[in-house]
């Protein structure tokens, strides 16, 4: 028995699979740039780099940090390390807390929580390590206890999260977080 294969359709079949693979990869690889980076860029109302902002769980919508937990108080500051490092003076309540550094495309490049830190007040110096070598700290006033972090992301957002055990504590937790400061070093 002879089987006649129509190579015309085989050709188009292979081409279709290749096109599907290209579309698939394009969506997967470019989605973070299209959505996360755009959200971070438009995240804060002032548009200022290194300015601490607080956000409410009840205001979440189609923005970054969607599906926020009503049991968590949030604050954030955007950063751009292209010229200078970022100094973070973080203040947290005596409860579960975590601080996370996220790149423009949403990668968690550094995180620390209350158990790991053992203290509720800490200083962090975020250096640009995206080029493989750490940014110079010359002229940066950093204490001996400062945690120096080499960031794989040159720009992104630092997110502060602290547990609110009871709604009656919401304001106090938010006030503590508000005492945190982000500034260019």
């Amino acid at each position, binding site marked *: 028995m002879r089987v006649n294969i129509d190579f015309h359709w085989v050709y*188009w079949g292979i*081409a*279709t*699979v*290749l*096109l*599907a*693979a*290209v*579309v*698939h990869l*394009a*969506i*997967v*690889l470019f*989605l*973070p740039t*299209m*959505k*996360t980076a755009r*959200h971070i860029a438009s995240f804060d109302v002032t548009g200022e780099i290194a300015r601490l902002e607080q956000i409410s*769980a*009840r205001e*979440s*919508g*189609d*923005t*970054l*940090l*969607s*599906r926020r*937990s*009503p*049991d968590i108080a949030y604050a954030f500051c955007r950063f751009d390390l292209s010229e200078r490092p970022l100094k973070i003076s973080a203040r947290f309540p005596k409860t*579960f807390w*975590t601080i*996370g550094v*996220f*790149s423009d*495309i*949403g*990668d*968690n*490049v*550094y*995180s620390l*929580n209350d*158990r790991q830190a053992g203290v509720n007040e800490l200083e962090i110096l975020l250096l640009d390590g995206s080029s493989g070598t750490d940014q110079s700290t010359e002229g940066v006033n950093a204490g001996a206890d400062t945690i120096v972090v080499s960031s*794989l*992301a040159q720009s992104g*957002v630092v*997110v502060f*999260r602290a*547990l609110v*055990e*009871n709604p009656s504590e919401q304001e106090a937790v938010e006030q503590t977080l508000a005492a945190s400061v982000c500034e260019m070093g």
Partner: protein
Amino acid sequence: MRRLVTILMFLVAGIGLGFLTASAAVDGDLGPSRITNGPWRTWLVSGATRVNPYVRAHFALTGELPLRSSEVFILNANVDSEGDTLSGECTYRIDSPQIATRWWSLTVYDANGQLIETPARRYSFNSRNVMRGRNGDFTIRLSPQAQPGNWIPTGNAGRILVTLRLYNAEAELGDNISTAPLPTIKRLECV
């Protein structure tokens, strides 16, 4: 003319297939790093140097900046334990054994990821404020009508999403998140 039709078919089929497979991998059942346990779904999140591009794309789509799984597991359920879509117009009973974690919370959102505003202003329960049984087990009811005990109002919100966050899960739970006993969601009645 025939060649033009073939090219059009090729473009539609290729783009459609690429879109469907990407959608299934990023937000559907085919996603790598996606774990299922009963009605609960979660994505494993690791550090920046080992981020799976599908995990990154998934969270870009949902708009979350997730912590690593070593800090928190975020488990979502949009179906009950029978696999039926959760609705804000129904009453559900969530039964859970004691959860081996430092702290947990269970929150209900509408289909847009927004907290559901009701006069009761209750959106969640957590390990500190939930009423428990003797063994640390607990029951939470989701319903548009007032319920006894731990009640989260759903306000006839249409489709709803239940999110269970497990902070600093003990190794016994964290290492076996796909098989560990987690809360069950049972539909009782619908309006």
